[in-house]
């Protein structure tokens, strides 16, 4: 099949007056692709996913899911997508089993029919199948929600921040599940505010203020970052950022974990930075060359975007 799993062409959405949630967004997700939508809160990720899930109408532009247009063929789309909203949306007063059974029946199928698709996920839930959904842990809730989204064997999965508020181990497990589902030929669009999850996707779109900054494989986005990069730390981290930004060779300086990531305009020796910082009164200065990550690339792209806007 040559059609894309998802195709969006210059979709825009405004809320009320002035608030632009999406501004001429275009992208495509191929069949069986694991596509990440990466961006901070309020970037427009949820709006985009809700448009694709036929819950929201775009003001302008064109969008299709599995070859069906979202306005005209919404009924077909609803039958063939699995959607997981950002907020847990299953019946908390029904048990794990009852929730799954209910969603299976309203799609005209049964748990047994598509059991092989959810087996890997559901075996972990099996011991709790009589427990009410509201009494599950965060990670378990996500697994149940994913099972319910998968029970009718969808062609496309739309997941809105599935790992927000879930512990590190469950997050890892969750991504492992997504990888397995992708192997089964299901196209997956997943949004996340966590940059470190970008590398787990085949391709990602970096989104900010309703704009897509870049769409590419995570590696290529990172390699597009060509500035020399150092991880710097001293005794006074707050002043460090101010001082580094005032430094003549600095391109950008952002806090990154317990360091500051310093990108330079042109290659200079670390000793020159050290001397500059020592001159500003910093002690315990540590400077290491750093490997660029997707977050550095994102910060860079955001910076460029703002320059363009100004």
């Amino acid at each position: 099949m040559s059609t894309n799993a998802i195709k969006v062409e210059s979709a825009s959405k405004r809320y009320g007056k002035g608030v632009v949630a999406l501004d001429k967004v275009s992208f495509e997700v191929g069949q069986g692709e694991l596509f990440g939508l990466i961006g901070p809160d309020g970037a427009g990720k949820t709006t985009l996913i809700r448009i694709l899930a036929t819950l929201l109408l775009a003001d302008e532009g064109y969008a299709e899911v599995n070859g069906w247009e979202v306005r005209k063929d919404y009924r077909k789309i609803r039958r063939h997508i699995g959607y997981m909203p950002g907020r847990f949306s299953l019946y908390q007063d029904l048990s794990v089993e009852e929730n799954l059974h209910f969603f299976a029946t309203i799609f005209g199928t049964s748990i047994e029919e598509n059991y092989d698709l959810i087996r890997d996920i559901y075996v972990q839930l099996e011991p709790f199948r009589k427990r009410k959904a509201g009494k599950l842990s965060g990670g378990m809730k996500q697994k149940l929600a994913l099972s319910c989204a998968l029970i009718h064997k969808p062609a496309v999965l739309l997941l809105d921040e599935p790992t927000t508020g879930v512990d590190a181990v469950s997050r890892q497990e969750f991504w492992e599940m997504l990888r397995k589902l992708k192997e089964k030929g299901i196209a997956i669009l997943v949004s996340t505010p966590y940059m470190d999850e970008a590398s787990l996707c085949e391709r990602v779109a970096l989104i900010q203020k309703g704009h897509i900054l870049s769409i590419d494989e995570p590696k290529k986005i990172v390699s597009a970052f060509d500035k020399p990069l150092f991880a710097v730390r001293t005794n006074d981290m707050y002043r460090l950022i101010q001082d580094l930004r005032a430094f003549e060779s600095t391109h950008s300086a952002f806090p990154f974990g317990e360091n500051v990531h310093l990108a330079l305009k042109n290659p200079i020796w670390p000793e020159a930075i050290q001397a500059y910082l020592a001159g500003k009164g910093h002690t315990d200065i540590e400077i290491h060359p750093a490997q660029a990550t997707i977050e550095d690339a994102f910060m860079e792209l955001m910076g460029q975007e703002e320059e363009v806007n100004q």
Partner: protein
Amino acid sequence: MRTILFIVRKEFLQIFRHKVMLPLIFLMPIIQLVILAHAADFEVKNINLYIVDNDMSQASQQLIGKFRACRNFNIVGHSFSSRVAYDEIQRGNADLFLEIPPHFQRDLLRKNKGSLQLSINAINGVQAGLANAYANAIIQDFNSQIRMEWASLAARPALPGLSVTFSNWFNPEMNYKTFMVPGILVLLVTLIGMFLSGMNIVKEKEIGTIEQINVTPIRKYQFIIGKLLPFWIIALVELSIGLFVGWLIFDIPVVGSLWLVFGFAAIYLLVVLGLGLLVSTITETQQQAMFISWFFLIIFILMSGLFTPIESMPPWAQSITRFNPVAYFVEVMRMVLLKGSNLMDIRHHVIVMLTAALAVNVLAVMNYRKTN
């Protein structure tokens, strides 16, 4: 069709699982019916009467004896001073006092007329009005009796006079419970219909489950029917329980056809459920829905003719009650249960209800959106 069935099954599962909901739905109505029917009694008994008899004659004793014999009055004390009697009212020990002036009997005999004074505590207007009416009835009775006696003593022919007697049709003993219970049943059914149905859909909005439902192939009408059907069934079951309790405890007569009562209730519930649905489409939280529902419900109930007769309302208020579904059902319940009205008698009500059901539900379904 199957989809509706799945939704109905899910709804019942949730309703019957709820710890508070189930007893609330089935036990509360019975309790309310038993309590409300006893409380909503307009008959005033045990009126505390204080006597100021300054005459101490045969006539005054005869009059007081009449009051004593009446079960509505309860004589709490005697005095010769109206000031003392007034203080008794002030303290709340007496509801009214009857003052018989000196020379009451003499005036009656010589001048052929006498005067009496009744002072009534009118803070509770209904009670005061009734106390006045009861007391006047007794005095009238005393008056005619005395005229009869003395007229015959004087060997004159009895004075001609009109006497009005009456009998209460359809409720021969003027039993307020017979009158109130069918109305209270309407309230209970209305509560279930309007609150539970509306609240239920808003709850799905509030906790976000509607998001998941909206992306399923469930059609709009399937979802709505699936949501309303359980409460339609529950409300009808409730009506049956209520009628049974009413019959068991209050001996409510069922003169007309029960089929007619249930048939009308079925249509009426469509209106009420539709209203609940309409409220739920325009609200986002259960709190908002609750507030709006209450607003309408209070108006509907107070203007339903259940507590005060519609005929005693000003004309503009009477025209408002034409849009009040509760008023129609209260009237139909009383007509069919007490009077034995048949379908032809209530055809006007049925037509109005059917029209309302159609209008409200079309509006609600149009207002309900799966996509924003």
